[in-house]
């Protein structure tokens, strides 16, 4: 424990600026993954245990796209859209067969998908750590705010993820499609009776959820090492986020993601070995005090 260093940091503005900006960026990336998970759960009632693998595949596809074109924008688009297609295939071919089945079936099918994707990635890209590095076009001097350093690429990541989050909020809140999706989450039978093709709706929602995970994986490829099996830790983190925020609530997921992001960035100074543990402590507290989460609708 280096709690003194944490105190030193909190009392200097420059350090706070640096850590808060890093925490917000980590939190927003986490939010993309967690919002996909919570969207799928809210509408389809399915917890996508393979969500972390979608994140991982997104990172690998971005790596391939970047290698082929040298453009980070193409790389992220390739990662996000590739995973959307992958998600669509998984939903149509496998998961749609077990809607309404018990939790065990869902877990087992997703577990099989995780096993297969991990191995496919290993066959295509090898089992070693790969790293993409920050693209040359985005290597700019960092912003200095009140003495605190904000890396240029982190600022870009924050803007992009915030834009995606706003787009998601607008899409779900203001468009006809979003209203239909929200209605289907509450009463799918009624929505189907009104003439909406819920089978297609589910497939699209699943693809969007997968795409969010893929986009997060692609965006974070330059700052994290890419390795088979990398999906599990992000899956657990985004699960913690959905528990803290409340299953099915996108707003709750946002708040919880930022809490976890800040815990990570400040924790790496104050208690580097206990950062993971701290997330579990927060989750356990939320579960004990408010089991449905910060913004939970349904009691767990």
């Amino acid at each position: 424990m280096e709690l003194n260093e944490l105190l030193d940091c909190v009392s200097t503005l420059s350090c706070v600026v640096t850590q808060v900006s890093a925490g917000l960026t980590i939190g927003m990336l986490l939010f993309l993954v967690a919002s996909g998970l919570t969207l799928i759960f809210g509408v389809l009632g399915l917890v996508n245990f393979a969500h972390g693998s979608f994140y991982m595949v997104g990172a690998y596809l971005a790596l391939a796209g970047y290698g082929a074109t040298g453009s980070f924008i193409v790389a992220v688009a390739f990662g996000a859209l590739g995973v959307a297609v992958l998600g669509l295939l998984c939903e149509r071919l496998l998961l749609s067969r077990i809607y309404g089945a018990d939790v065990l079936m869902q877990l087992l099918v997703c577990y099989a998908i995780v096993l297969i994707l991990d191995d496919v990635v290993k066959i295509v890209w090898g089992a070693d750590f790969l790293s993409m590095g920050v693209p040359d076009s985005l290597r700019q001097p960092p912003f200095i705010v009140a003495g605190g350093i904000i890396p240029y690429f982190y600022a870009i990541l924050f803007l992009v993820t915030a834009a995606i989050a706003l787009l998601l909020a607008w899409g779900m809140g203001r468009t006809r499609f979003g209203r239909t999706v929200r209605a289907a989450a509450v009463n799918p039978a009624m929505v189907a009776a009104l003439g909406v093709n819920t089978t297609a709706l589910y497939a699209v929602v699943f693809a969007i959820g997968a795409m969010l995970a893929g986009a997060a994986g692609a965006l974070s490829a330059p700052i994290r090492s890419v390795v088979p099996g990398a999906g599990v830790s992000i899956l657990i983190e985004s699960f913690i986020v959905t528990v803290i925020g409340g299953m099915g609530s996108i707003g709750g997921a946002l708040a919880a993601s930022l809490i976890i992001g800040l815990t990570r960035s400040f924790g790496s100074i104050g208690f580097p070995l206990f950062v993971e543990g701290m997330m579990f402590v927060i989750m356990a507290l939320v579960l004990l005090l408010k089991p449905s989460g910060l913004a939970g609708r349904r009691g767990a």
Partner: protein
Amino acid sequence: MRGLADSLRGDLLFGALAFALLAAVDLGLGSPGLLDFTIRFATFALLALSLNLLIGVTGLVSFGHAAYFAMGAYAFGLLMQTGAWSIPAALVAALAASALFALVVGALCVRLTEIYFAFLTLAFQMLLHSVILAWIPLTGGDQGLMGGIPKPAFLGIDLARQDHLALFSAFCLIASAVILRQVVRSPFGAALRMLRDNPDRAAFLGLSVFRYRLGAFVIAGTFAGLAGVLMSLYVSGAFPSFAFWTTSGEAIFMIMLGGISVFLGPIVGAALFILLNDRITALTDHHGLYMGAILLVLVLGLRKGLLDFLVEAWRERKERRS
């Protein structure tokens, strides 16, 4: 409780026969491969069997069961490495450690059901995994417990010998199976099944859903701890992979292979899983690809385990005849 006493006698007889058969085959053939298989089979069968008390009987799908497996393995390994403990004493202490850990985690987890329960148990397992990795002075981090585990002989049993360890593992499995079957058939077990099928009714009848679920969680965790002890005896150490989520996934896989609704299903599933796993590992490097594909066929095609399928087919045939 005459019925229970009768069933106990039957189970003991069956268990003794099974043990005699296993012992005769193991000692008669005496091939190292068979002894090795017996130890691994007993270890994983025990893990799967204990997990099925939660999944099949209580209706709680735990995806973090390997946490108690790892706890048993590490506790036993660490105690034996001090050199001050005999095997039976360390075994009992390791079971107590697993039980205590299951009690703490269970008290948090069993308030939730369904997918929340599955993920929360998984999360605590991954917490244990990261603690094992980070606490290097105690656990050796990602290298695992190195330096071997001393196995002083007790009561004429020398577990450093492969044949003794095989028989000991088989004995542990069979004794645990007899105990677990008694648990399942006891009034406590009946209450657990009611919690699975209709928790609201159980609550209306005045049963404490929390206490019964927690009880099942601790019992399952304790037997998983015994499986962990066997594992640490087998590999003469303990490794972080014991606490990794794939170990829990494999245990669920075994249950799915063998059958959820039949008591012996997980044991059959463990045997099938190990045979399948060895065959696939020998044939290809892409182990996950094939195991995943088999799992998909099983879950989406059969939708139940092998023994579930056979027992149902047999029952249907009997009904058609009568």
